[in-house]
């Protein structure tokens, strides 16, 4: 496994999360994995994964931390978001009913990312995408 070109751990607060999110997106731009035009989709996926980790994984408990890493895997970039919660099965997340108040984050990640999985041994959501063309 390659060494991540970006890795940060932060407490489960949305303030800390937002700062890390900005730095992660900047790293993807700097490393050429995304172009400016791709930023909204990528930012959306990262935010959904991080919000899930803070809110559902760590229950907004600032004593628990979330870790995000971005790794160059050659053909694709792998994003890993881990928390200290109980984990979940991505495949068991159902498509939400029309008027359901939540549960759309994973649907959006599945749409915009090429691969999405939850590694229960590491309590980690993994998603990957290919380099966006210039």
């Amino acid at each position, binding site marked *: 496994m390659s060494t991540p070109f970006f890795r940060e751990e932060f407490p489960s607060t*949305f*303030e800390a*999360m*937002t700062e890390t999110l900005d730095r992660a997106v900047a790293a993807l731009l700097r490393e050429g994995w995304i172009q400016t035009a791709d*930023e*909204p*989709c990528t*930012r*959306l996926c990262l*935010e*959904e994964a*991080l*919000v899930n980790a*803070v809110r559902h994984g760590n229950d907004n408990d600032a004593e628990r931390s979330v870790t995000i890493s971005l790794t160059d895997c050659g053909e694709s970039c792998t994003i890993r978001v881990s928390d200290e919660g109980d984990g979940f099965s991505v495949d068991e997340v159902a498509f*939400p009913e*029309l*008027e359901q*108040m*939540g*549960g*759309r*984050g994973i*649907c*959006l990640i599945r*749409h915009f990312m090429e691969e999405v999985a939850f590694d229960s041994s590491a309590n980690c959501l993994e998603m990957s995408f290919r380099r966006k063309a210039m």
Partner: protein
Amino acid sequence: MSEASDQILDFSQEGAIIVGTIRTSSVLSAINVAEFGNEVVAYVESRPGVNLLLNFENVDYLSSAVLTELLRVNKAIEGVNGKLRLCSLSKVILEVFQITNLDKMFTIYHEDREGGLRRFQRALDIQAEEAAWKEPS
């Protein structure tokens, strides 16, 4: 005329329609997305029958948490017998509505603020004409 100062949205009255323009994408971040919903719901609940055009021209993307707040807003609008329309959605935002099937729940005008206003006003005019026809002479 625009109202207020440190709000998340600028509300302006255009005839029978209120345009709510979201100021920047950052106001819809995880930190303050609930405030966005609270602000719009409070505005709507104090204006029975409001015709609200939400303008996304300053927004690059929105998360699922914003969709949840928009569902709250939609319920509040229904609760006051008002109407909600959305306009100026970027390609990514429109895609987010389509992926989640919420494009079937919300009425989206694929136009900018001015185009959205014209369509909304036309829809209100047609509704008024239909109501006049149904009135007993």
